[in-house]
């Protein structure tokens, strides 16, 4: 009996929590399907009178180039920073030279800094090297500021999953540093890659501060374009919400399909300590 009650309580809590997490999405979708006249603060909870797919079509037309920008930016930066991290993590976990740990700590600090503290010099630097306003510039920025977290994840991951004996054995068999990377580390690194790529994909896709400061309108990622959809005068909230949903779709899909691997990677030691 007590078991049963406990079980019921469990589901009540779980479902209640789920409602909390889903509420904003409900409002988002419901507004996205309404016509302009229907959108009103007083009736925000009401279901739409019909299904106005026009909003999504209109939002897609406006956001398509930016979605494409975001895709190029995020895929490029994610892949590059993942490989950089995997290489760095490997070196720092299996090839510790003198001062490697101190160096790593210094690099790790970069993960925590508030971006406001480097924003202005960053802008001037990008202007100096001619990458200001270009998408490639934003890719570079994300790759560099992604170094600490990707290195951390891989370093911990390798330390947990690849025993030193394995590395030594390969060494004895005649493999050098790069060979070990290629034949020993990479094959085992898949879960690490999954965690890093999911993390980076989400962070970079959703990032706003660098995006709004460093790109010109032609290269705007979708986060900036979404703010822009709000216009400077009258806002069409229904189109805005539809657009917001479209902008959130890629990362949502990544999570829906890959969260299992994300958790698996976490458990395999990617984020210990």
């Amino acid at each position: 009996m007590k078991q049963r009650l406990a079980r019921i309580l469990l589901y009540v809590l779980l479902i209640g929590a789920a409602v909390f997490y889903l509420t904003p999405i409900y409002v988002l979708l419901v507004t996205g399907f309404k016509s302009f006249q229907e959108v009103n603060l007083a009736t925000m909870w009401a279901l739409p009178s019909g299904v106005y797919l026009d909003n999504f079509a209109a939002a897609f037309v406006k956001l398509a180039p930016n979605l494409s920008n975001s895709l190029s930016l995020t895929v490029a930066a994610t892949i590059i920073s993942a490989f950089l991290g995997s290489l760095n993590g490997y070196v720092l976990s299996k090839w510790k030279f003198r001062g490697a740990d101190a160096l790593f700590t210094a690099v790790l600090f970069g993960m925590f800094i508030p971006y406001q503290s480097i924003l202005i010099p960053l802008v001037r630097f990008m202007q100096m090297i001619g990458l200001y306003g270009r998408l490639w510039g934003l890719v570079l920025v994300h790759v560099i500021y992604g170094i600490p977290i990707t290195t951390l994840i891989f370093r911990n991951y390798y330390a947990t999953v690849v025993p030193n004996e394995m590395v030594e054995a390969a060494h004895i068999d005649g493999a050098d540093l790069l060979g070990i990377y290629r034949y020993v580390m990479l094959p085992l690194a898949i879960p690490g890659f999954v965690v890093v790529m999911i993390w980076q994909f989400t962070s970079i896709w959703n990032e706003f501060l660098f995006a709004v400061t460093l790109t010109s309108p032609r290269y705007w990622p979708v986060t900036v374009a979404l703010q822009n959809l709000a216009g400077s005068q009258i806002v069409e909230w229904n189109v805005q919400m539809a657009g917001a949903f479209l902008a959130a779709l890629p990362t949502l899909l990544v999570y829906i399909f890959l969260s299992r691997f994300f958790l698996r990677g976490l458990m395999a030691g990617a984020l210990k300590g």
Partner: protein
Amino acid sequence: MSRKLYPVVALLIVAAMLLAACKPTPVPTEAPVVAPTQAPAAAPGGDLEVFSWWTAGGEAEGLAAMLKVFQAQYPDVNVINATVAGGAGVDARAVLATRMQGGDPPGSFQVHAGHELIDTYVVAGQMEPLTFLYEEEGWLDVMPEDLIKILSSEGEIWSVPVNIHRANVLWYNKSVFEAQGLEPPATWEEFFTVAETLKGAGIIPLSLGEAWTEVHLFETVLLGTLGPEAYAGLWTGETAWNTPEVTKALNNFDRVLDYVNEDYAALSWDQATQLVIDGTAAMNIMGDWAEGYFKAQEWTPGVEFGWAPAPGSGGSFDALSDSFGLPANAPNRDAVIAWLKVCGSKEGQDAFNPIKGSIPARTDGERSLYDEYLQSAMDDFSRDAIVPSLMHGAAAAPSWQQDVIDAVGLFIGNRDVAAFQEALTAACTSAGACQ
């Protein structure tokens, strides 16, 4: 396993790099040496980047109409319509400031006429004076003197105003007023009487929105209490801030806050105007872009909604203007000057303004193109005393404006009039206008 993986991986990296690099790059235009002022010999061609925050609705359409006029006159120019949005242009200004700092100006950019332009780009030496253009095109004869004053600094004129908006307008719901037997108040004393009646009837007297709309309301209270000369003097140092007259204005503002909707800190300006349409509120003090909103909700000027100058400001025109300027190292200077000519022309302004919902900066606009409200605004513009708006960039430098915004924000939190007045006085001093 890893053998096969390697080339795939290498391919992925290369593909990733190609993806990012393969976006079409805009032709980076070199900054030319500043050409001497001369009439362009041949029809201008090349690219022209026009930078604004007119991204949606009537504004975007109005801009498109004006660009069409331009394109018809100068078909060889390739116009790049670059826009950045974000409430009254704050994001746009951030982007623009960064570009100007980096020596990468657009061809021409939208900027609020007055101190927003002067104290940002002119003092940094990044703009070319346009007095020559005004003389060439005869604009000094068709634009009011007060307006030219707002556009000038150090004896030169710095931008070409395309439109004029009025900030000190009181909009009201006609049926609510009729039902209560009220007339739009002409002074602040009358306002409070009207407000009491409305409050008693369970109607919110004045609807208000967040942040900048509060400062907008504040400046109309200042104007309505002090009168146009004293108000304009606040921004030049002629009127001191720590005087009893200013205290009176601040007290009026304090009182007004008792008659607004309680959730104003969460409403955007249009949501506040919506309250008047819903009949929940009776009045709304907002610039005349609100008319565009009323019309979008299918209300007709003079039928469902009426207007009057904000209390106490009859005879004063609190002006703001969107204008375009000439950056000192603008790419394709000839095209920019051509664009500016269209901006200041009757044809250009009459193409833009009826759609945008504002009035031309020229006094010779074609009246028949404008609706009832705009016609009355045009009349007022040609005879009222024109004063610069603070919230919309005409009256003061951005840093001073920010100080006032902060002071208003704090006052709304603590309602301490004395501290408010002190903060405003200090703001004037730190801006260098007062002693």
